[in-house]
């Protein structure tokens, strides 16, 4: 039996008068690859920001591996094994590609120091960035920056990887590289939450999907079942669900 890794328990978040999330609850087990989808403004990124510790929840609790993490700072959450790729790319532009990778691993401290550089080179090679290793990250193209940020998420043996729109603005060939990398991590037992508007990719990659709409979970279950639900099709999926 798999262990529960992440538990979201009755989470609500208000920004002034705006109810961004309302009583959201679900659990994710170790080794799952879960799609988190929903229309724009449905609360997906807010939920990731709550898990990461960027915002405190207005109500509810978040547990990672049985430890309560709401109220911790982002760096404390990262050290517990949660890594994050942002929707708008966030890299360290004046540092080299290699330094971007090393910073995460040293700061999180989940792998031995002696292995860090070897691991960074290995990941960069798999992501076709090895020849840029000593280039300033700011000199990379938009797509390459996205891939670099994606790579940093896997530097520190994370327990949970939160990927927010990893395929946006990526060339189809490079998208294939990311999908392959993600699949390999999942097959090795890694846990991933994938937020994406690229529904075909989510459907192809994720055995389970959670749908948010207006800050609430409207569906959660096996992907093929969820995307056929009328309320999901209505809220978000439109023609894609009918076409299947």
């Amino acid at each position, binding site marked *: 039996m798999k262990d529960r890794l992440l538990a979201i328990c009755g989470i609500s978040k208000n920004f002034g008068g705006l109810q961004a999330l309302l009583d959201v609850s679900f659990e994710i087990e170790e080794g799952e690859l879960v799609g988190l989808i929903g229309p724009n403004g449905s609360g997906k990124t807010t939920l990731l920001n709550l898990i*990461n510790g*960027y915002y405190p929840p207005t109500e509810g609790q978040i547990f990672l591996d049985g430890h309560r993490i709401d109220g911790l*700072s*982002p*760096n404390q959450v*990262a*050290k517990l094994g949660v*890594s*994050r790729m*942002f929707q708008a790319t*966030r*890299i*360290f*532009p*004046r*540092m080299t590609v290699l*330094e971007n990778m*090393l*910073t*995460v691993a*040293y*700061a*999180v*401290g989940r792998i031995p120091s002696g292995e860090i550089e070897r691991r960074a080179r290995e990941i960069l090679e798999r992501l076709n960035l090895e020849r840029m290793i*000593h280039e300033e990250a700011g000199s990379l193209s938009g797509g390459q920056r996205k891939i670099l940020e994606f790579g*940093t998420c896997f530097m*520190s043996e994370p327990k949970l990887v939160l990927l927010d729109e990893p395929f946006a603005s990526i060339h189809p060939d490079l998208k294939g590289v990311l999908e392959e990398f993600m699949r390999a991590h999942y097959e090795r037992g890694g846990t991933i939450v994938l937020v994406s508007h690229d529904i075909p990719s989510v459907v192809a990659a994720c055995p389970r999907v959670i749908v948010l709409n207006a800050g609430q979970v409207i569906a959660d279950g096996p992907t093929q079942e969820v995307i056929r639900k009328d309320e999901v099709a209505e809220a978000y999926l439109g023609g894609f669900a009918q076409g299947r």
Partner: protein
Amino acid sequence: MRMEKRKLDLLVSVVVFCLMALVPVFVKSAYWLGVLVVALYFSLAAMGWNLLGGFTGQFSIAPATFCMIGMYTSAMLVHYLHWSPVAGILMSIVATAIVGLLLGWVCLRLRGPYLALTTIGFAEIVRGLIRFSYDITRGDLGLSVPKLFGGGGHVTYFYTFLGVVVLVQLLLYFLIRSRVGLYLQSIRDDDVAASGRGVNVVGWKTLAFTLSSLICGLSGGLYVHFIGLASPETGLIIQSGLIIGMAVIGGMGTLTGPLIGGLLLQPLSELVREFGVQHMLIFSLLIILAIRFWREGLYGSFRKVLARVS
């Protein structure tokens, strides 16, 4: 093969230091040796500011204030308690580290213009306290202190200042090459992303404030025992502007830039001084032009050209 940028920084610094070590062989004028000692003081302060502004991205406008705190700490200990200048200088480091730690803590949640304005406020408060505490500091008249080497010539001061600058540069080189250097630079580039990737932004920012302040304090402690007078004039905002200008024009966020900035701009400032009251105008214009056309600073531009060539 391209050289790693920090190693290139070190190599260029070594070349600059070797050239500087030869200066007293060729420059016999006590006046110009004195100017170079002042230039080394500014270089050291610019190196201290650069750790915070250039490597950590925290734009403080109070480097001269920390120099002044260093000066008065040593000056008062030597003047009133008859400590030796060396002990006074060591206490300058301790005092500015403590004040820097406190200011860093106050400024933790501030960024950009808010941080800059807070440090300006801090600078004016400290200068005001010194000016108006006449009974202790002698206000605008300044506090006379003995020199570090008594009757020693400028050559002795020159090599002492140079030795301290070399030592600090070496320590900064190892700091920036270490994982701490990575954390500081990640905070500079994107503190939100840095915290999400495990960097303790609050802790490392505080450390950067503390180290930057103590380097400025050290430069002030040394300087006061070179000129023999602690004066609130040294903490003027324009003095901070000069220090920041040296770091920016030399190459902010590089190890060598502030060193070069101080060593070139201070003598240059002396050269244009003969234009009388207009000298600050000319000097300021040079700063604006340099920022407009060499945003990476002199050393940053040199590094770029070198990268293109190799």
